[in-house]
């Protein structure tokens, strides 16, 4: 009888590991095999990050806590053809803010930012090597998600952009502090103040991207890199990462404050409305 109880507990524990180790959500899925966690984004059309994405990212973050003990690498990639991620779901952001009092809308935005920052900070500081395997559109919040990773491997059709200024906003998911940490202020100013997009080759030239590969090859290259980093002692790799990749906490906090201050302005609502109602053939172009 005792053995049966024990079996039941073992079975329960196994089931929990199973739940944590593999999960298929509606907009993202993850799995772990051979010490490599893979997080796949698959929301139509280009992985726009809204409340459902955030909810599932938080579930992934909780699972990551448990999985990272048995993993040495995390790969984040997109299964959507247009690209890695087009950023925040601006339609949802606009629609949710409609019909709300200004203070209520501001609180909603701040809560959303606090939550996404927690997830991205966790990915940023995870004690394993994190790799963003990107292709196509890697814009706004998608760019910021990639920036939370240790390495960016891009296929040659990838494009990176911070288009937020056209909406009267700044990037809100930690992009400015992380880009500044990794590359320096001049690059941040160029991308932020012009809103222009750059291709993978340029991104590699400025040190943002570690490898540029052929079309459709980013995931394969990321997997090969994950195998390579798995050859090293995990504790040493984690210590090295902790030493060279500090989380810019103060600037991240300040970014949330500035974003929320800006969000309350009528110009932002007008900018969001223009985007949502746009029939422009190039709404993604700043």
């Amino acid at each position: 009888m005792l053995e049966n109880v024990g079996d039941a507990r073992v079975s329960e524990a196994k089931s929990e590991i199973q739940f944590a180790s593999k999960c298929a959500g509606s907009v993202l899925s993850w799995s772990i095999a051979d010490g490599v966690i893979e997080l796949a984004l698959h929301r139509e059309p280009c992985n726009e990050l809204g409340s459902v994405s955030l909810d599932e990212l938080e579930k992934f973050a909780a699972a990551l806590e448990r999985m990272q003990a048995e993993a040495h690498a995390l790969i984040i990639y997109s299964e959507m053809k247009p690209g890695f991620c087009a950023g925040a779901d601006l339609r949802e952001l606009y629609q949710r803010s409609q019909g709300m009092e200004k203070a209520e809308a501001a609180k909603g935005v701040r809560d959303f930012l606090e939550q996404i920052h927690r997830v991205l900070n966790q990915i940023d500081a995870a004690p394993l090597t994190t790799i963003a395997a990107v292709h196509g559109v890697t814009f706004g919040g998608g760019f910021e998600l990639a920036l939370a990773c240790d390495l960016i491997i891009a296929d040659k059709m990838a494009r990176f952009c911070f288009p937020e200024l056209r909406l009267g906003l700044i990037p809100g998911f930690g992009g400015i502090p992380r880009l500044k940490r990794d590359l320096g202020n001049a690059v941040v100013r160029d991308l932020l103040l012009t809103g222009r997009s750059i291709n993978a080759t340029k991104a590699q030239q400025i040190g943002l991207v570690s490898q540029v590969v052929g079309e459709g090859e980013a995931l394969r290259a990321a997997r090969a890199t994950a195998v390579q980093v798995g050859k090293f002692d995990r504790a040493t790799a984690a210590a090295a990462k902790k030493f060279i990749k500090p989380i810019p906490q103060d600037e991240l906090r300040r970014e949330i404050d500035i974003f929320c201050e800006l969000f309350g302005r009528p110009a932002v609502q007008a900018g969001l409305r223009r985007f949502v109602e746009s029939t422009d053939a190039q709404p993604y172009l700043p």
Partner: protein
Amino acid sequence: MKTAEQTLDEILSLAAAHFKVPREKLRPDDDFFKTLGIDSLQTLDLLTKLENHFRVELPDYELQGVSDFRTLAGKIQARL
């Protein structure tokens, strides 16, 4: 140094191959949004293809309002 005509011809060939449209259906003054039937995300693909092929940087803001192949070729030619 490529001539403007060469640049234009290469753009038409690239666009035809990438979007699987017969080359002979594309003309220099066509509105490429309509002729190719492409949306904004596909336009970014075209931009990346062109940058990679010609080894130039084309800031998106310089292409605002550009919708025909000939004007596009002029923008690229200016950066060669």
